[in-house]
């Protein structure tokens, strides 16, 4: 509860500071402070120091898992703000409001990490989405940004409609909005006896969640929106928001997937393969690094979906690790990308000569995304694959994933090639030494998690 309240309040604080404080460059410091506060509040709740106790009538349920996810999301946001805060301010004339919206999104994220019913799920998703529609459109003069905002909005609302229909049908079948249905009887044929109407609802709910986490074939908004949105916000959307979507997905279907019987695994494997296919294969062709990252985020979503397939402890730990690894790396890359004058691959040519530190840290991030050992990304992928194998069978699915991971190396490494092996003078904006330090910190964190993932995970365990 701490996190929800503090993040909402911080959003309000940011709005007011926009009015009170004329000095715009103060905003990111306020926001960082707010995030720190939020982090402290959340940690207090996690470790039982102080908790705002409100009777939620079982609509929200706080557990260590969710709190820990919050911690990761908040830390990631903090890193994001520290690295790209300046660029957020540059996006438009309302920096305070942007930060406020980011806090509102975080409020949605924290709701999604603790919802205990479809109503809170719905509200959480909307609270998370609506600020994003706006953030996408903040670059008002830019037609691409406008277009992305409208596309995102229309498709987002459409998926909300689908989700609501799903919720309605589930409600019709079960009479409640809970997410922990009674375990159904199993028919002699091994099929759970579930009302068809619930299944219809679950399928629609599944579809809408797939949409939110940009799983194929419901991913179409992702490349366009990520490409059109101002890069700073793309970074945010592609990482924390998406991870929250996955977290909600996992929480939602943790106990409901059993209702769908065999088709759950079929549908999921279909979605996983389609996601991996489209994400990875299409990314290969992209010339713009930003758009490539958009597709890569789809591809990474394919991997995260394995957590759902596994549906065991490993996948829970895995999704945490994946969130951390993927967010760190993507935030890092985007932070560099924003500094580039040219977003195409050629724009990165020779970055290792002009900005060796950035090139090196970006390389670490890219290695992490491609899942090379000794980076966090490896263990993230490792957990996903392990959870599926632990859940029994489905070796073929893992194999497909692995082959696509190899494809992903292709496009990630093209950036490395451009930076290190190609001649050119990559143009960047002015790079401060703080930024460099930040990037080194991110890279160091990635390697740390990559070498000793238990550092991160043991927090979850004790």
């Amino acid at each position: 509860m701490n996190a929800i309240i503090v993040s909402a309040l911080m959003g309000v604080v940011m709005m007011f500071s926009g009015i009170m404080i004329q000095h715009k460059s103060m905003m990111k410091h306020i926001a960082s402070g707010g995030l720190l506060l939020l982090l402290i509040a959340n940690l207090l709740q996690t470790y039982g120091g102080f908790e705002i106790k409100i009777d939620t009538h079982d609509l929200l349920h706080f557990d260590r898992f969710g709190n820990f996810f919050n911690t990761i999301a908040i830390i990631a946001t903090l890193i994001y703000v520290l690295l790209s805060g300046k660029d957020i301010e540059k996006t438009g004339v309302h920096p305070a409001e942007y930060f406020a919206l980011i806090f509102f999104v975080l409020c949605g994220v924290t709701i999604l990490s603790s919802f205990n019913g479809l109503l809170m799920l719905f509200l959480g998703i909307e609270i998370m989405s609506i600020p994003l529609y706006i953030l996408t459109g903040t670059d008002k003069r830019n037609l691409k940004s406008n277009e992305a905002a409208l596309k995102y909005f229309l498709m987002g609302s459409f998926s909300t409609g689908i989700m609501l229909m799903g919720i309605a049908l589930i409600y019709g079948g079960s009479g409640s909005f809970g997410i922990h249905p009674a375990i159904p009887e199993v028919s002699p044929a091994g099929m759970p006896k579930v009302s068809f109407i619930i299944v219809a609802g679950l399928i629609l709910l599944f579809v809408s969640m797939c949409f939110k986490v940009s799983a194929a074939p419901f991913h179409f908004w992702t490349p366009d929106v990520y490409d059109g949105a101002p890069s700073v916000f793309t970074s945010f959307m592609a990482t924390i928001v998406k991870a929250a979507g996955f977290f909600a997905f996992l929480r939602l279907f943790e106990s409901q997937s059993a209702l769908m019987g065999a088709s759950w695994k079929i549908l999921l494997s279909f979605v996983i393969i389609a996601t991996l296919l489209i994400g990875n294969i299409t990314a290969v062709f992209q010339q713009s690094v930003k758009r490539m990252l958009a597709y890569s985020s789809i591809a990474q979503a394919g991997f995260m979906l394995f957590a759902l397939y596994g549906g065991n402890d490993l996948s829970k730990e895995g999704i945490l690790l994946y969130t951390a690894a993927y967010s760190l790396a993507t935030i890092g890359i985007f932070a560099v990308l924003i500094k580039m004058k040219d977003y195409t691959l050629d724009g990165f040519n020779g970055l290792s000569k002009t900005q060796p530190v950035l090139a090196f840290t970006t390389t670490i991030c890219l290695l992490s995304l491609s899942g090379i050992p000794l980076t966090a990304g490896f263990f993230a992928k490792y957990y996903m694959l392990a959870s599926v194998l632990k859940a029994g069978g489905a070796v073929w699915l893992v194999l497909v994933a692995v082959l696509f991971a190899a494809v992903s190396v292709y496009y990630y490494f093209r950036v490395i090639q451009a930076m290190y092996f190609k001649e050119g003078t990559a143009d960047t904006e002015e790079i401060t030494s703080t930024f460099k330090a930040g990037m080194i910190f991110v890279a160091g964190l990635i390697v740390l998690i990559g070498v000793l993932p238990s550092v991160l995970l043991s927090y979850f365990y004790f």
Partner: protein
Amino acid sequence: MIPVLLISIPLLSGLAAFLLKGSPASKAFALASSLATLALALVAVFSKGVLFYDAAWLPSLGSKFSLMQDGMSKMLCLLTAISFVIVLLATYKNDYQKSPAFYGLLLLTQAGLMGVFLSADALLFYFFWELALIPVYFLCSIWGGEKRIAVTFKFFIYTFIGSLLMLVGILFVYSHTTDHSFALQSFYEVKLYAKDQAIVFALFFMAFAIKMPIFPFHTWQPDAYEQSPTAVTMILSGVMVKMGLYAVIRWLIPMVPGAVHGHANLVLVLCIIGMIYASLIAIRQDDIKRLIAYSSIAHIGLMCAAIFVQNQIGLEGVMIQMFNHGINVIGLWIIADVIEQQFGTRKISELGGLAQKAPIMAVLLVLMALANIALPLTNAFVGEFLMFNGLFQFNSWMAGIAGVSIILAAVYTLNMIQKVFYGNTVEKTKDAVEIGFHAHLAMGILVAMVLVFGLYPQPLIELTKDTVNAIFVQR
């Protein structure tokens, strides 16, 4: 403690090398580091019994930082250590741009290789497997030849696919271990159904087959060897291909003996086709580097075949040959490098008559070439003799067909000697000079090893006996 040091010396000095400035300093540093490693490797060789090291790493996953150094590991660590010294010596005259980074990456590769040969934990093994690959990717892509980027990329992705498949295999076995552990022993003790064994076998073998490489997964290799900087090529062919062979012996055979047995014929057929095929291609090669590459493919094919015949004689042969092939092929590369440095070409057809101008080089090359075709009293003979012996005991027809590659090896090797060293000098070679001091030194050491192990291979056999016996006791 020795195993840890074997890994950490190159690892730390590799990282430290990045901080150095200037070419001479980094060269000297790298050489010093590799000499230290060599000394340690020798200490390991002369110490009795199997060396262990254990430390906690990922308790929640059941993975430990555990190292084990038995005879085979000792030998391969020694090979790695020697190779790096030789390579550094032989290329001492070459000046690389950004040489601190070059030597740093080279030493990191060494750390990876050592780790692969030492780790007794599947996850750790996988880590080192990749650690050995990534620096090589950068080395080749930055310092390689004209088509380096594309070629290295292919090589990288190819091997990466392999290692990912291996990862799946590791996870698969891991999920079947009784104590949920990645330890070597747990993997050995895992009980799998025949169907699962086949899956595991396929997954692992693909990785190793690509690494070795076995026909038809070999096409990355000639290109990569051709385009890599020679120092890296030496490491690639001298040591890195042994990773695949080592892994088969260390992991695959004890883990899924049933599947290995069941697929032996298939693998053998591939190996033998590969031997003949690569030898035939080598006959027609005009590029020295590619020729050596194909020759290497043929030899590796034999080694792989000898592993899969699964008898003691064959395996002993493989053990010896792993070491000796490393020595020989590095020697060949040194010559190839000297030639390329001097004449700016690797085309056999553009060379000739070098023996008149550089007799010492010619003698050294001829010796290396003879070792390459496994002439008796050179080191390769004993290995090949034992391997063919093993193959023969498995299936005499296969041995006979594989034996054709001995003849073909003579054809292409002598072809090369004849066209490069004999005959009259041509335009490019009329001002040829002898090789320099460092290359001389390196070659001298190699030739000495060729002859010593050719006459008295027993030390190698003794060293690796425990590994071989262990494998055959287990079954």
